[in-house]
């Protein structure tokens, strides 16, 4: 059983947002909406400053509150790699999942249903990387199967220190940031 994850090297990321615009074109995300985004955290005082830039999106949580709170079953865990998906034909737009996600990773598509990152499952099923991963000019994003100990992501996870976002929220996020 595959378990898809992303491993992102914050040392390399320059915050260019190529990942954001690639997602928008690949997935036809309407103007004004986005499935992935950039954050910048600056600490310290000039000139002794630290900066972490992160590309963020749905963390494809192993313990996804957005799925458990969904009244219709529209939000579900895909059998492939444990990716959390929304079936737009089952979604009533109650927004419970938006409220339940500690990362604010979901939004309501102008057509009414809840939408979010799909890990580009349509590409992954064809053997491609997700659009954001495949476009990144700094090669800072890596996608793969954490259950395969030989995968690039598994090797990266064992070789470098890392963190996840808001682990204290208990959702078991599956995007790892190398520091």
């Amino acid at each position, binding site marked *: 059983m595959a378990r898809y994850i992303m491993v992102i090297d914050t040392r*390399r990321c*320059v915050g260019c947002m190529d990942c954001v615009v690639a997602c928008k074109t690949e997935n036809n995300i309407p103007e004004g909406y986005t499935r992935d985004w950039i954050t910048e955290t600056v600490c310290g*005082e000039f000139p002794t400053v*630290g900066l972490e830039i992160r590309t963020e999106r749905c963390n494809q949580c192993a313990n996804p509150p957005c799925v458990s709170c969904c009244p219709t079953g529209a939000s579900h865990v895909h059998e492939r790699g444990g990716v959390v998906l929304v079936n737009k034909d089952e979604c009533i737009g109650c927004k419970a999942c938006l409220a339940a996600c500690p990362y604010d990773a979901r939004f309501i598509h102008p057509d009414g249903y809840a939408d979010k990152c799909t890990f580009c499952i349509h590409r992954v099923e*064809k053997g491609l990387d997700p659009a954001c991963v495949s476009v990144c000019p700094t*090669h800072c994003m890596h996608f793969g199967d954490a259950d395969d100990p030989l995968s690039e992501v598994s090797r990266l996870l064992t070789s470098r220190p890392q963190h996840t976002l808001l682990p204290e929220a208990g959702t078991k996020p599956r995007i790892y940031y190398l520091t």
Partner: protein
Amino acid sequence: MNSLSRRRFLKIATTTILAAGVAGRATRALAAAAAANGGPSGTRRVPTYCDICFWKCGAIASVRNGELWKIEGNPSDPLCRGRLCPRGTGGIGAHTDPDRLRAPLIRTNQRGEEKWEEVTWDEALEYIATRMKKIASDHGPESMALFAHGVGGTFLKHTLKAYGVNNIAAPSFAQCRGPRDVGFRLTFGDDVGSPERTDIENAGCLVLIGSHLGENMHNTQVQEFATAVGRGASLIVVDPRFSVAASKAKFFLPIKPGTDLALLLAWMHVLVAEKLYDADYVAKYGFGFEQFAASLTSYTPEWAFVETGIEPGVIRATAREMARYHPATLVHPGRHVNWYGDDAQRSRAVALLNALLGSWGRKGGFYQPSSMDIPAYPYPHYPKASRPTVDNPGRKFPFAHEAISTGIRDATLTGQPYPIKGWMVYATNLLNALPNQAETIRAIQQLDLLVVVDVIPSEIAGWADVVLPESIYLERFDELNPEYFKEPFLALRQPVVESPNDQKPNWWIARSLAQKLGLGAYYPWKDIEEYLEYRVTAAGLSYPELKQKGILHGPRQPLYFDEGAPAEFDTPSKKIEFYSLQLEKAGFDPVPRYTPPPPGPAGSFRLLFGRAPMHSFSRTQSNRLLSDLMSENVVWINHTAASRLGLKTDDYVRLRNQDGVVSNRIKVKATERIRPECVYLVHGFGHTSRGLRHAFGKGASDSQLITRYRTDPLMGGTGMNINFVTVEPEA
């Protein structure tokens, strides 16, 4: 470009073989691309090359069910290696931009009022031809000037040269990389080129002086930069602002703006005083080293500390760091280097520092680019101009080797050495690209004809008599790109989709205008494909294959001296000139000499500006995909300075410059990421053209606030970092 550098580029045998350098990753990507190709039946993939900036990355655009869907890097393109930058990826927004120019326009009111009448192409071209003929008969054809930026200008240049026009310029010299190329030519006898011949990916130590790679999104450079960072290369970043690059650096030197030359001199002082420089290299290739070394004695790190604010210990440590990795230490020459008006000399100091480290011609330093030899189309000869160009009268800027855009503007304003009465402007928003907008507008008022060829209603188009709407790059064939790069290759731009309205490609415009001007003989080909096929075939290559692949490769050539690249220097001494007799003879410092930058008015901030990764200059703000990523710029103010002014992040302010010009309102970014005596904003925002409905009035324009500039005495570049602003809260 002039022959001096061209001559030295290697001519390449034109067999098409897949470059050996395209290794595993690219092959995988190719397979991936092929897999995607076999996707939904309604999807078509067309290779072409990008035009959102001048880097010209090879791209593959996908059309799904007849609509432009996405654009990705061409895995076989050595420039992009299968990955475009955000602007390239968002390039399809240029096609769908609802604010695009749709039809030719002729002005109906006063210049600058942006009132138009839509006309047919025939009427528009007739109008232009008539006025061009009048200018030629009244003043001579040289009184027409062409400003053209980027590859798309080729055919208009051809038409105008055929007409006898010799005043042709782009802002890429006097407003961009000119001083750097002059500084390097004076030292190594050659340009750095574009794409820069910097071997960033192999550098052991990389020094960035204001080059904000990562925000400056020139694709290959950023990719190689990330590789170097990933490899753990030692990175030294010199910038008054904690740039993205600075955040990756081992050493961040928060320099006082305008004092870089002092730092460079001190570094060289340390390298020479501590004998850390590449003595063999200097002995073998150097000229005038002793005089140069002697001139450095007083430039101690302690002296430089006073000027730059960089601790002497840090200056020594970084100089030693550079020495440790040499010759694989790359002191990046920068690109937009028109900062303070002494830029050619500062760039020369950068060149000299590289020379001391022995990085020119060495792996991890500067490589020797090569290109494929694609024969030119056999056109008739151009008429000989009866008068010299106006941009550099009497060669008062003796080391300018390209036309000075602002020089043409000066001549237009003064009528000296002879009047300029018509401007043809192709793909350059002169109002935002040249310093001092008022001067540009005054010059425009001297004209009998201003034609602007653009894709959106830019500010310069707003002042035009005739506006010609061009098809965007995804809708047209264009000139071939036989790039000078690490490996030779040839790229084709071809249409992916049709133009939505009455827009036309530049080649069609140029040829139609030529016909109106009675210059039909200069266009022997029937359509652009005939032209392209001729050149490609003449080079021994297959045009159908180029169309199918988008890129054809030539064999890799030696990149470094030790690989057999010729160690030739096209300077008068045929050596690397540590001491420049050319400069001395022309009355300039033969070795760079530091003078401190004049301070600004009390209580004001120096205005600095630069790039945001998702925008190109002033051309992408109405691209809805890209503006979605950043719809307005913000002004960076040091956190402490902002608190003192009672300002916090997201407050709106206006900037007032030393000459009383007040900007549009702009949001504050109160940040620890900048020195307290300067502010910073991203160039290209604060549009004033009403036609740019989406971008109009969003953010503030640095161009508007740059009323002053200092001209580089060597080459006529316009240093623009000499403006100062105060910050006024917006109620």
